[in-house]
């Protein structure tokens, strides 16, 4: 008997107008263009949804969530966290400025019995989150690594995911942004 396919969501969180904060959307777009998955894998750029994150986590078997993390370390460092790393009371790790939504959405879903069976957060330390900047050079380079790691994590869990022989062109509609300097003065 073949096990039913896992319901999977690959989610990028972040504000594409705030420099490195746009890493999540960039990483999932990179993943979508380079890899092909079975149809039970949803890929979402959710922007900055706050509590509206809940419907996308609801009842999933596996969620991979890419976001920026405010932690000590070199900008561009990629780290992996599981749900307990930041939900439990003892571990006070705060994942990004968006995590109030994540924290509460998970708490609600746990109580309703609909939280994801497994949640992995792929966090990156940002260099600069200035208004009107694109993702900076250091993190731009990490998006490919994050995309490869998403694929590895999926394959390890038995989700069918393979590299496209010809990648789809990326749709980074928000680039180029106007110069940050001219935004402040214009």
């Amino acid at each position: 008997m073949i096990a039913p396919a896992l319901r999977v969501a690959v989610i990028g969180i972040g504000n594409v107008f705030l420099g490195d904060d746009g890493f999540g959307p960039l990483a999932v777009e990179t993943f979508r263009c380079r890899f092909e998955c079975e149809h039970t894998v949803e890929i979402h750029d959710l922007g900055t949804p706050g509590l509206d994150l809940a419907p996308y986590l609801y009842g999933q078997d596996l969620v991979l969530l890419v976001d920026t993390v405010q932690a000590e370390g070199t900008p561009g460092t990629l780290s992996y966290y599981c749900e307990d790393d930041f939900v439990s009371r003892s571990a006070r790790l705060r994942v990004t400025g968006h995590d109030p939504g994540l924290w509460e959405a998970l708490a609600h879903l746990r109580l309703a019995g609909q939280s994801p069976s497994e949640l992995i957060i792929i966090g990156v330390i940002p260099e600069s989150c200035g208004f009107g900047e694109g993702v900076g050079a250091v993190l731009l380079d990490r998006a490919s690594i994050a995309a490869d790691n998403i694929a590895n994590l999926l394959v390890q869990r038995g989700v069918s995911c393979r590299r496209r022989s010809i990648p789809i062109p990326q749709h980074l509609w928000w680039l180029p942004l106007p110069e940050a300097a001219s935004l402040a003065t214009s």
Partner: protein
Amino acid sequence: MARVSIDPVTRIEGHLRIDVEVDGGTVQKAWASCTMWRGLEKILRGRDAREGWVFAQRFCGVCTTVHAVASVRAVEDALSLEIPPNAQYIRNLILICHALHDHIVHFYHLSALDWIDVTTIPSADPARAASIAEGSSTWQGNSRRELQAVQDKVKGLIASGQLGILSHGYWGHPAMHLSPELNLIFFSHYLQALEFQRKSCQVVAILGGKTPHIQNLAVGGVMNAINLNSLATMNMDRLGMLQSLLQDLIPFVQQVFLVDACLLAASYPEWFHYGRGVANYLAVPDLPLDAKATKFDLPGGVIMNGDLGSVVPIKDWQDKAFRASVTEDSTRAWYQGGGPLQPWKGESTPDYTDFKEDAKYTWVKAPRYNGLPMQVGPLANILVGYASGHALTHKWTNTAFQTISSVHGLNVSTNDMQSTMGRYLARAIRSAMLSDLALEHLQLLTTNILNGDDTTYNPPQFPAGEVTGMGMHEAPRGGLSHWVVIEKGVFTNYQAVVPTTWNASPRDEKGIPGPYETSLIGNPVSDPVKPLEVLRTVHSFDPCMACSCHTLDAGGEEIAQVKVL
């Protein structure tokens, strides 16, 4: 006298700081300050006007479709472009379902914990709770077993010491006085609401291609292909899926959300006496029914000084009075310049000074209508509809009034509605109305398609000279307008006058405060260290401060700082 500063206010979208001066247990003065800069309009200058909506829907992480639609409507207005009826209906359905989602999340997840004390739930009698719930609603999910299961979960949560995940509620506060049974019922619906939040997202996803950022919009209509004989387009299967999702969603709105709002109102009648604030109301017409947008399912209008007899309709989006009356003032906001400017001439050059209560203290400008502050939102929507004799508004407002009266014999009038509790109730009434309208607009779409109309788009043509346009939407939080100036197909100015700007407005050049600030005067505060009553009134507006902030520090606790000075 105590000075209380709540920074940030929790359980809202974005960052808001509220300062109040409390004397003799009531608020004497109040200041609302938005602590982040929303400079996104600048990103739109120089962009292709056909693509503005893609950027506008990132103005806020929550109110995505709202800004997308206002943006295309502004450009279409500048070009006097008609929109095929199919496109109007599809946009309307998206807007309705987005609003239902938003209103459900606000009532349960963003504000219920101001009124329900979760810590009393273990002492509730589930059988009695089930009998109360089943006595007031035909909803299927109120069985004793269901409620017992929720009670067990809460007991487990309390035993594990993890109650803190529930938004730092003011448990045991003297202003909380629901019975344990009602707390259990509300909390059970709080958890069930998650499923319906998801269903309304699914409707938006089917029509918009994706959520939360829809992909089907275009200046001139929508990009949904309609072909009843094709599997890949809008066909009878898709229309049937929409119908079935709506049939799941609507009973939750009309038999749970509305009933809960009525029970809450009947249990806290004193809150019809607080929070009136600015009693000038503005609602804009929405849910257009024809290509030229001459007829609407939601009426617009202006009410001054709380007098429903004074209602002046805003008949359509061309309304000259509306265009001439809206200004924004930055005397007390962190922008250069000061006095009122018409939005097409609006400027947003930052001039940050720190919080100075006698000078500049917020990133929100002060919008004015003929020089006066206005309250926008579901309450304005309901009052304008009621005053204009709008049948659907009367139907659901009267249903709510009768339900409240049947519970505790409390008679609520449209005058009582102008209050903190009135704003909660109005949001539920509006949701019940929107549920009826969702089915109506799906039917309109289906009939139009079956009649052989598959048009969804009229291509735009941009003149070489300068054109100006304005797009309106009666959004979940109230009247929204985008004001654009276009030259050779490119934006040369872009200003969004958003609902929260109307309501969170600071004082203006004449020193007149905005709706949040005015509504807090006279608000009770029994314990300045736990200003729960202030939160009730602030949350009643459903603040959304445009979620573009990313400035929390690594150790930053999200728990609000309440400082008493």
